[in-house]
C-alpha cells in the first residue's frame, strides 16, 4: 500500500528529472512529493543531485578570452562581402 502511495526509491531516482521538469502526471507528482517528504535518503539524493549541478556550474565556469570576439569581428569584415558589411572597398574595417 505504501509503495503504491509513495512509489519506490528506484522510481524516484530514475524519473527525478521528469519530476523536476514537470513532466509527470498529477498522480505521479503527488507520489514523488510524498516520497521525497517521507524518505530521508531520497531527499538527500535530490539535494546532492542539485548540488552536483550547482558545483559543476561554479567550477566549470569558463568565459572565453574577451579579445576573441574582436578576432571574430575582424574575420567577418575580411571574409564577408565588403559592401554587405558596410565597408567601402579598400577602407579599413570599422569596429564599434
Amino acid at each position, binding site marked *: 500500500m505504501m509503495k503504491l502511495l509513495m512509489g519506490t526509491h528506484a522510481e524516484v531516482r530514475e524519473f527525478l*528529472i521528469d519530476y523536476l521538469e514537470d513532466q509527470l502526471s498529477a498522480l505521479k507528482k503527488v507520489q514523488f512529493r510524498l516520497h521525497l517528504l517521507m524518505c530521508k535518503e531520497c531527499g538527500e539524493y535530490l539535494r546532492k543531485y542539485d548540488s552536483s549541478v550547482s558545483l559543476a*556550474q561554479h567550477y566549470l565556469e569558463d568565459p572565453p578570452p574577451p579579445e576573441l570576439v574582436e578576432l571574430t569581428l575582424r574575420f*567577418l569584415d575580411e571574409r564577408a562581402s565588403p559592401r554587405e558589411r558596410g565597408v567601402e572597398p579598400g577602407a579599413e574595417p570599422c569596429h564599434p
Partner: protein
Amino acid sequence: MNGQLTAERLAKLRARDHDAFNAFVREHHGAVYRLAHRLLRHAEDAQEVTQESFLAAYEGIERYEGRASLKTWLLSIAYRKTMDRMKTRYSESHTVSGVLDDDALWRIAQSVQRLTDWAIDPEQHYARGELSERLHEALARLTPETRSVFELRDLQGLSSQETADVLGISEGAVRVRLHRVRQYLMAELQSLFGGKGAQP
C-alpha cells in the same frame, strides 16, 4: 541593443546591417565559443569554428524562419560545424581513450549508494583549480553528444526544448541524457570526496 529579437532587429540583420550584426556577434560569441570549446577541447579550433559559424549565420540569415530563437538557430549551426570539425580532424589522430558510452554512464549513475556530505564547503577539501580540473576531466570522458546536452542545458541555461532544437533530438532524449550526466557527476563528486566510488 538588447537580446530581444524585434522585427526591426531581424530586418536589420537580414539587410546585413554592420552594427546590427556586430551586436549580434558580441551578444552570442561566448555561447558559441563555449559550445565549440567544450566539445573540441582545443582553443584554436574552437575559435575557428566560432568564426565559421558566424560567417555561415551571416551568409544564411535569410534561411532563419523564426521557428526557434535566433540564438538556438545560431547554436545549431555551431553544433553542426563543431561535429564536422571533430569528424574530419580528430577521427584518427585524436582518439580519446576511456570515453563512456551510454551503458557505462548508466552503470556509473547507479553506483551512488551512500552519500557523504561534500556539498557545503567543497574547497575545504580541494583547491578550486583541482576541483575544476577534475570536473573538466570527468566531462571529457563523455561522448560529444552527451557533453553538448550538459553544456547547453545546465551550463548555458537553455531550456530542454531549446537544447533539443539545437541538437536535433527529441526533448525526451535531452532529459534522459541530462539525467545520466547529472547522476554521473554526482558519482564522480562522491568518489572525489570519499564516498562510494564511481568506476565504470
